[in-house]
């Protein structure tokens, strides 16, 4: 059990309440749960890492419990109740400095829980119908919330009385009608104060809290269906968004144009996450598949059928696949090189041979080309 959980690099939470780990190297998927105690009330709604070493995983179930899963041991170590099922499902979950948990439910109650006390340490009201809560990767005290008819709000947990930044609604349209709000997902743009949100009205907005302008500084549109999830790749300037029909697109954040689409999905996207260092994006959703696309050529790399509708997704920050085998192998090779020089020479010989072998064939190819050209 523990071995399996250590190998997994992609974690997926499903509607049936099962936590699934996927090992892309061996193309295996494991269920981490007791199959006898399955129930739809334990539907996984949020996943996050419990500590920076990624040995603990927090799982928010829709019955209001937050369970801790140890990836080292491969078992659930802890379960605590953080709110009621009546308050709605979790819309966000984050850990605060490894010891405390931030939870946010759909009714808008954002709470901070400490391990030692049973009640919440801090509580703030982010308004009704919160669709998503996210934590800033830079400053762990900063969280953003947003939802239906509930614009983007940026909170500082040190001063929970008032939001640091509140987005203003869009300008009325050309018929002087109010434009509705529906923030579905948001993310913090690294190396700046800016935030990017996607809405149920197929828009992508960029907000800049550092300027006095409270309306979006950039507005882009994609498709005709509500956007459900977004993620920022490691290489900046773009954002990956997905909608309810399973269309995923890369949008440029400078002008808001579509850079390319990722194909292959057949159902609504529920969660998207880009890898921290590799140009990869993982997506999961109602079509019960976990898909991993390359952001470079936008081709699908992996496709795993996971049997249940998938709600949320979490990637390990270590390399997903080649890193597991290839990366370590390379590291091992380097060590060997340092230890014994003979092996270096062996390997070099081999390289030369290969080069010699290649040359004549390559030359032949050139000749053929020239002949064709001559004709």
């Amino acid at each position, binding site marked *: 059990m523990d071995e399996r959980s250590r190998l997994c690099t992609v974690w997926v939470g499903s*509607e*049936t309440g*099962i936590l699934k780990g996927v090992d892309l190297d061996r193309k295996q998927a494991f*269920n981490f749960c007791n*199959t006898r105690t*399955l*129930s*739809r009330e334990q539907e996984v709604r949020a996943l996050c890492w419990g500590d920076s070493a990624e040995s603990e995983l927090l799982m928010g179930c829709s019955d209001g419990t937050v369970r801790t899963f140890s990836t080292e041991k491969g078992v659930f170590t802890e379960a605590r109740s953080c709110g009621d099922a009546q308050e709605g499902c979790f819309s966000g979950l984050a850990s605060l400095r490894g010891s405390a948990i931030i939870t946010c439910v759909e009714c808008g109650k954002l709470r901070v829980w400490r391990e030692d006390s049973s009640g919440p340490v801090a509580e703030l009201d982010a308004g009704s119908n919160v669709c998503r809560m996210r934590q800033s990767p830079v400053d762990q005290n900063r969280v953003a919330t947003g939802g239906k008819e509930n614009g983007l709000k940026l909170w500082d947990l040190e001063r929970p009385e008032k939001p640091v930044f509140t987005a203003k609604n869009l300008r009325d349209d050309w018929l002087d009608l109010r434009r509705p709000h529906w923030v579905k997902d948001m993310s913090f743009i690294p190396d700046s104060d800016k935030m990017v949100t996607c809405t*149920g009205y197929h828009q992508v907005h960029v907000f800049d809290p550092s300027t006095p302008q409270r309306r979006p500084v950039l507005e882009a549109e994609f498709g005709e*269906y*509500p956007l*459900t999830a977004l993620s920022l790749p490691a290489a900046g300037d773009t954002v990956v968004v997905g909608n*309810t*029909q*399973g269309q995923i697109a890369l949008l440029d954040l400078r002008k808001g144009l579509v850079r390319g689409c990722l*194909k*292959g999905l*057949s*159902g*609504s996207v529920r969660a998207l996450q880009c890898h921290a260092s590799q140009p990869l994006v993982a997506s999961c959703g*109602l*079509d*019960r598949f976990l898909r991993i696309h390359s952001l470079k050529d936008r081709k699908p790399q992996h496709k795993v*059928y996971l*049997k*249940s*509708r998938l709600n949320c997704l979490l990637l390990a920050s270590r390399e997903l696949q080649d890193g597991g085998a290839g990366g370590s192998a390379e590291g091992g090779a380097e060590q060997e090189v340092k230890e014994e020089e003979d092996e270096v020479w062996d390997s070099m010989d081999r390289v030369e041979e290969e080069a010699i072998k290649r040359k004549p064939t390559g*030359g032949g190819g050139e*000749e*053929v080309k*020239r*002949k*064709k050209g*001559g*004709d």
Partner: protein
Amino acid sequence: MDITEVPTNQGSKSKKKKSKKSMKAKTKVKNEEVEEERSAAVEKMNEPAAAFPPTFSVSEIKNKQRRHLMFMKLKQEKRKQKLQLKKKRRKEREALGDKAPPKEVPKTIENQRVFDETTVDPEDEEVAFDEGTDEFSAYFNGLTNPKVLITTSDRPRGRTMRFCEQLASVIPNAHVYYRRGLALKRIIPQCVARNFTYLIVVNEDRQVPNGLVLCHLPDGPTAHFKVSSVRLRKEIKRRGKDPTEHYPEVILNNFTTRLGHSIGRLFAALFPQNPQFVGRQVATFHNQRDFIFFRFHRYIFKNEKKVGIQELGPRLTLKLRSLQKGTFDSKYGEYEWVLKRHEMDACRRKFQL
């Protein structure tokens, strides 16, 4: 050194070719084929790298009449060969008698189907749990009885109304209502309040039914089908007398994948769970190549071996366009599956249901 040699070679060859071509143009030899072959052979000898096989194709003949003649000849020859081969094989089979190898199964795109990893394994616990607790579980556990509302797009005309009436005679406990220009999203809460479990909306285009929305109540899912080749009762030959009001039996064929299972359950939940065998009526949903064929029959056991069937109608073909989670909300609803043309049907041997 190699490099310097190559161009000289090439030059001479190209010259040769040119001269040959000019020769051809001048003399215009009658037996073109032979000439072509010879030239091709010469070319082959000269440059083995550029491998253009000496092919003769009928379409290269410029004269239309001659081309036609040659084409007919070619076809006849092919046919002759085929017949000969067939005869030979049959003779062989007859000669071998009982030892003859079994006949080859013809290749069809169904038996060449690409393996679908979502094919449901009946022993899979997780899928069983998922299916056991889905939106249809209330029906399959016997807690609810189906009650169906059938309506149309606004201002139905012609065949659509008759189609709805006939559909209502097939599905027990179905009520046909005139749409009266109401919005579906406003109908749905009223239906839920009146304990309807299904809402069927027939869409029409130019007086012909062409779409079907099948919405399971109270909380989804909603399927959208394309409807084609509708045959009403009147248009069916050798049909039986009008169906009775007994609950029919339901046959669901070939719904193998996970999506197919969902669709199959959607259809199954339309009919009451306890068929009345006295009526001897059976409704069939047969899936073949992602097209769902609906037929309605009456059967009779003539003796121990023979069964007679009689079609009662209507007849229609459905093709799934989308499956949406929740009740009808085409704009803001979340789709579980959407047919993406040219992306999903790029492979003809891949089926979704």
